């Protein structure tokens, strides 16, 4: 890595396998790929001139994206109880066994309060904010949450994240007809491997998740979450192919976060994770090329967006400050407002109780501010990394759980570097169109483009 010769001290250079020479301003993520080993001086000049022209605007845009606080979603955990017992789960096992639940009255109170909190957002954005029913297992409170969706569907978009164990055919119809966004967890196509990490007493999520996927039958609002561990890492590409053939359009392949020491041993090795993740990306491209339907690996497409359209990111884990306490927060069954669901059980981050204090007070609480002030510039190693505003060094909750400090280098650092480089390789090969939604491509517009 070296500074670009001449006046452009902020532009760094890096040779990337199968991509060419990358010029990048890590602060605003201006980038250009030079082919022919970057020997073409005329091409280089054109890039520098484009960079000089755009630099100020890009700086301002990145500043705005990173440092404004604008909430658009709230995660509500209707219960701490779960009907499964996944060994990696970031909800502490003791909470899941003897936890609290919301009742109908309390849930309605929360939704009314959030409705008021979001009034200015609705006016500015002219869209509904999002409520997502999340951890532990929301379907244990099916009646309550479905009736809240019926009551509030004009005020909010709704989402639900579930292990699908309790999902029935009529529920699928309900969720589809109310345009609810649904996430289903499935770790492997092999039931034995799936059961290693998605344990449930007397039952399994395996057959239920597959049944549910078939019932949803290509529903636009469905995505699957696969939590990647050393057990299932080799099967990611096969899983992607299977999901595509079952009309799933989006899957997230999330490397397991060790929010407890015992989970560290479930992490896949970096080399293995990189190899099989990239194999899965290639499988997604290959099946999407061959058929009319696409399947997107959400967390990889998000990286590609981080490079080519930073503000269009959907997931807010790979930018610093992350989205926790800035774009969304979570409410637990005892009323605690926390910056993100992954901070559950970490009292020092609690912004107050929604039954006692205002949401605004939580937004300006010490805990929320601590997450909002976590920037890559303050993390040794990330501060000089050229990918710092594509990666963001996730995740503060994971790092804090293990070291009592949010400001650390991500345990998946090397993995991120490799997949960001792979994203540049796909950009160089013109394959990114398979990573975006088809409808959007028909009238895609550019802030700037140079293709010489």
């Amino acid at each position, binding site marked *: 890595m070296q500074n670009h010769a001449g006046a452009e001290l902020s532009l760094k250079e890096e040779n990337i396998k199968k991509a060419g020479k990358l010029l990048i301003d890590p602060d605003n993520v201006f980038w250009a790929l030079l*082919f022919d080993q970057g020997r073409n001086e005329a091409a280089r000049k054109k890039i520098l001139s484009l960079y000089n022209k755009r630099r100020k605007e890009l700086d301002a845009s990145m500043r705005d994206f990173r440092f404004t606080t604008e909430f658009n979603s709230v995660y509500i955990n209707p219960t701490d109880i779960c009907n499964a017992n996944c060994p990696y789960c970031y909800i502490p096992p003791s909470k899941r066994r003897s936890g609290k639940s919301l009742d109908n009255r309390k849930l309605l109170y929360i939704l009314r309060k959030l409705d008021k909190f979001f009034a200015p957002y609705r006016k500015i954005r002219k869209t509904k904010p999002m409520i997502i029913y999340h951890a532990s297992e929301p379907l244990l409170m099916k009646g309550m949450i479905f009736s809240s969706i019926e009551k509030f569907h004009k005020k909010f978009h709704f989402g639900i994240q579930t292990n699908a164990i309790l999902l029935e055919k009529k529920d699928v119809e309900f969720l589809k007809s109310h345009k609810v966004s649904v996430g289903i967890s499935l770790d492997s196509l092999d039931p034995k491997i799936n059961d290693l990490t998605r344990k449930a007493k007397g039952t399994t999520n395996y057959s239920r998740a597959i049944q549910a996927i078939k019932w949803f039958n290509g529903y636009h609002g469905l995505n699957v979450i696969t939590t990647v561990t050393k057990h299932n890492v080799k099967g990611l590409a096969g899983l992607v192919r299977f999901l595509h053939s079952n009309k799933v359009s989006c899957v997230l392949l999330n490397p397991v976060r060790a929010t407890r020491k015992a989970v560290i041993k479930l992490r896949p090795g970096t080399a293995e994770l990189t190899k099989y993740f990239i194999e899965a990306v290639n499988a997604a491209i290959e099946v999407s090329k061959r058929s009319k339907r696409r399947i997107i690996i959400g967390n990889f497409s998000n990286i590609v967006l981080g490079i080519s359209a930073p503000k269009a990111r*959907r997931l*807010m884990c790979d930018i610093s400050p992350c*989205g926790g306490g800035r774009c969304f927060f979570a409410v637990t069954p005892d009323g605690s407002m926390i910056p*993100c*669901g992954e901070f559950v059980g970490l009292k020092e981050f609690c912004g107050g109780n929604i039954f006692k204090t205002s949401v605004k007070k939580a937004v300006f609480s010490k805990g929320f501010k601590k997450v909002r002030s976590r920037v890559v510039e303050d993390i040794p190693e990330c501060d000089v990394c050229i990918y710092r505003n594509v990666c963001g060094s996730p995740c503060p909750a994971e790092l804090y759980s293990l070291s009592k400090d949010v400001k650390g280098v991500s345990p998946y650092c090397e993995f991120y570097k490799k997949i960001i480089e792979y994203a540049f390789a796909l*950009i160089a090969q013109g394959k990114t169109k398979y990573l975006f939604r088809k409808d959007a*491509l028909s009238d895609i517009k*550019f802030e700037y483009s140079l293709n*010489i």
Partner: protein
Amino acid sequence: MKKGRGAATLKKKKKGQAIAYRIKCKRTANGLSHYVPSDKKALV
């Protein structure tokens, strides 16, 4: 930019020398590990 020409910009030219672009987009951020589907015109 005319309709249709957009996607072509994503592709490297044969014997191309360099590529650089930024796609115009609205701010869409919305989540942690849950992927909330977007309207049809959004990129993903």
